[in-house]
């Protein structure tokens, strides 16, 4: 993005991104690939809505439809929403705590490439004999019976990208525990850092059960094990438990960072300190904690018995309390503030009614006997889209506008941003509000078609029309991105003017070593405090200008991930009788992976130093890109 980057050839730029261990560049990688998968998942959503626009439509065949709904859910959750949130975490969180980089820059890169290759592997299924078709929940009896390799793509792809996410989670946790700037106590951390922290802890504890479940699935389908094979003594409910022990925290892994982004936005654009900061922090922790105790509310109809259902129903209801605390604290943050309706703020404001609507239907479904009616109907489809789109996607769109200048040094157009908002927001409610009633009118989820005699035609048509509006909104956003990049008007440290936290005290985009001197944090909203004190230097610094130690870039994370990608093809075709090369591919892939890990561990990598002289040169000239 700087003058030096522009001089670089295309190949050199690609190589730079392949080997980078800089959290800001990795953030851009996450944003681009997550954004790409968001478009893929959106396209799949449009196909679904076209198919369901009229009764008895034959636009998609039954089998194809099941593949599309499976890939829509899987892509949106694992390959779009989570990576885009990881992009913001990577780009912003280390700046917010005044860290030089994340704790493990090498692992940060490895985490990205594992996610990336996992996602590519999963999507290659479309071109290699069919995508997975057992729903994103991949319930075991259907998954085991599914023909072809779709389910194998699902299990292996998610295993790989799951490792990547787990690594990212550990990395953020350690970064926040160990690398906060002097004075940045836990109770002075910005809310986005707090939510990153709790979401990372959830990743740490929630992903292993999924990985174990996926391994069982792989062993059952590819190596003849019988965890889920009923006639061999297996039990398919085990999959449901493992999946939802992961799956419910996963929802909070998505929504908590979204809460974090909105918390930042409310404070910035109300020009006011977050109301009840302490309560917001503890509500975040409580939500994360309860997230592990409610998984069986996805399984009320499985037949676990009334005691289990009642216990999980009550546990689920309790979550409404900390969530409510958050909503009211946000409302009181804007109350008495000085609200500027910028694009990010409009999203944040629109988030409140949308998310409350999604939240209350969540409580309704916690009522187990009522859930017997709502479960697996269109009501639940409406509910989780209200939570995920009304919460997470609105946060992603808001965050994109808010942090674009910090990541790329230029502002997205406010005018186009508002157009995007109105199309997306109206389209969103039009699509999903009506689905509550479809569910109550008896329409089950995951049906590829419905009869004209069921009374669902009109509402489905309305829902499909709403989806078109959402698509238009996303297209306007793309236009906005392209136009902004062409115009490329550079902005300063604090382009919104009301920044409160440390990330707004540094250049946009920041130099590759972040703060040349580690800042000293004097309280919550530390940059705001300095601004109010009239500090012309921006911040007070905790150390004199000196040499900075930086890690070396490395291609090894890319190679490790590539090895696993290759090995997965071997595992995939292992049991096919006609592919004797599968075992060789499996072994080659594993050799590449473990070989490069060995190289990494045997070759010392001590990094390099930026000298004080270079830093002074930078401060004058503005080399922000390093090598």
């Amino acid at each position, binding site marked *: 993005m700087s003058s030096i980057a522009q001089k670089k050839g295309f190949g050199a730029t690609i190589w730079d991104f392949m080997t980078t261990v800089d959290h800001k560049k990795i953030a851009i990688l996450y944003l681009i690939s997550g954004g790409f998968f968001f478009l893929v998942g959106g396209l799949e959503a449009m196909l679904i809505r076209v198919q369901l626009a009229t009764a008895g439509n034959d636009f998609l065949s039954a089998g194809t439809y099941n593949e599309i709904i499976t890939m829509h859910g899987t892509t949106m959750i694992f390959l779009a929403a989570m990576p885009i949130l990881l992009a913001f975490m990577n780009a912003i969180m280390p700046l917010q705590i005044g860290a030089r980089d994340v*704790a493990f820059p090498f692992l940060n890169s490895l985490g990205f490439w594992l996610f990336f290759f996992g996602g590519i592997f999963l999507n290659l299924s479309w071109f290699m004999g069919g995508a997975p078709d057992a729903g994103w929940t991949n319930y075991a009896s259907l998954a085991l019976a599914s023909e072809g390799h779709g389910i194998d793509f699902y299990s292996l792809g998610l295993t790989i990208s799951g490792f990547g996410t787990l690594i990212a989670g550990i990395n953020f946790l350690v970064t926040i525990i160990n*690398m906060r700037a002097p004075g940045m106590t836990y109770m002075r951390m910005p809310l986005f850092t707090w939510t990153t922290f709790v979401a990372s802890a959830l990743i740490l504890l929630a992903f292993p059960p999924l990985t174990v479940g996926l391994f*069982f699935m792989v062993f059952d389908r590819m190596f003849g094990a019988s965890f889920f094979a009923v006639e061999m003594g*297996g039990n398919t409910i085990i999959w449901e438990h493992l999946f939802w022990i992961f799956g419910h925290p996963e929802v909070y892994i998505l929504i908590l960072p979204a809460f974090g982004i909105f918390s930042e936005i409310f404070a910035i654009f109300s020009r006011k300190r977050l109301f009840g900061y302490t309560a917001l922090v503890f509500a975040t922790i409580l939500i994360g904690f309860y997230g592990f105790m409610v998984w069986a509310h996805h399984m009320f109809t499985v037949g676990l018995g009334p005691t289990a259902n009642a216990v999980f129903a009550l546990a689920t209801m309790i979550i409404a309390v900390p969530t409510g605390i958050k909503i009211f604290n946000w409302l009181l943050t804007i109350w008495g503030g000085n609200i500027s309706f910028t694009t990010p703020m409009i999203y944040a404001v629109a988030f409140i009614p949308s998310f409350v609507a999604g939240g209350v239907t969540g409580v309704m479904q916690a009522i187990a006997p009522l859930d017997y009616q709502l479960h697996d109907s269109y009501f639940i489809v409406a509910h989780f889209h209200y939570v995920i789109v009304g919460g997470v996607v609105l946060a992603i769109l808001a965050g994109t506008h808010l942090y674009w200048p910090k990541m790329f040094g230029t502002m997205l157009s406010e005018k186009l941003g508002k157009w995007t908002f109105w199309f997306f927001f109206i389209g969103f409610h039009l699509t999903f509000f009506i689905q509550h009633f479809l569910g109550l009118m008896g329409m089950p989820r995951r049906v590829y078609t419905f009869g004209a005699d069921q009374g669902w035609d009109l509402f489905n048509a309305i829902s499909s029309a709403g989806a078109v509006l959402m698509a238009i909104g996303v297209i306007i956003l793309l236009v906005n991105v392209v136009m902004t990049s062409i115009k490329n008007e550079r902005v300063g440290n604090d382009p919104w003017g009301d920044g409160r936290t440390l990330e707004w005290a540094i250049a946009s985009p920041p130099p590759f070593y972040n703060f040349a001197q580690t800042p000293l944090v004097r309280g919550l909203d530390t940059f705001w405090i300095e601004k109010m004190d009239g500090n012309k230097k921006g911040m007070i610094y905790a150390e004199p200008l000196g040499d900075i130690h930086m890690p070396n870039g490395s291609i090894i994370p890319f190679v490790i991930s590539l090895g696993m990608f290759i090995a997965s093809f071997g595992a995939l075709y292992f049991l096919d009788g006609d592919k004797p090369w599968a075992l060789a591919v499996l072994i080659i892939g594993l050799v590449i992976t473990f070989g490069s890990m060995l190289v990494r561990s045997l070759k010392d990598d001590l990094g390099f130093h930026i000298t004080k002289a270079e830093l002074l040169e930078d401060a004058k000239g503005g080399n922000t890109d390093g090598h």
Partner: protein
Amino acid sequence: MDINQRYTPQSWPEHPETATMEGKNKFIGFWLLLAAETVTFASLFATYLALKDKGPSGMEFSAAGLFELPLVFAMTMILLTSSLTSVYAMYHMKNHNFKAMQAWLGITVLLGATFLGLEIYEFNHYVHLGFGYTNSAFSSAFYTLVGTHGAHVLFGLSWFIALMLRNAKRGLNMYNAPKFYLASLYWHFIDVVWVFIFTVVYLMGVIG
């Protein structure tokens, strides 16, 4: 951090594993990884308990009939001892006594390899009885749980060996001290998991 800096037992810090920022990060990160590993094994244990003795109708195998405690008890003792020897190794690491550390690590590796050998013998024995991996849900769950632990042992052994060979000539420094420390931490974790396997799978299997 200078990799070439020479230390004496006097200048060597009391906690070399956390004396540098990198060391501190690794220390915390590794504990977190162990938390994730704990959840992994908890999932495997839960699955094993759910599928214990479950198989196709007429399956002849059951935990009570299959497992033999004497061999497993010997394996347990060997692995527990190896955990103790790795503690000695770390004691010498903290005193900057490289040779003694290498020696104790060598003993640890030998004990670990013996354990692994016995486990392979045990699995082989069961397979010969007809209790193969694909035999039943019970066998799948058993081999996956115990085998995952075995894979961890193998990884731990490889890690120790790689560290010992890589650093054989250059001795201890602030760059590799955290690595030795974490490998030994990992070894303790493996040991603890085995104690649970011994109790839940074997003892509870044979007795009730």
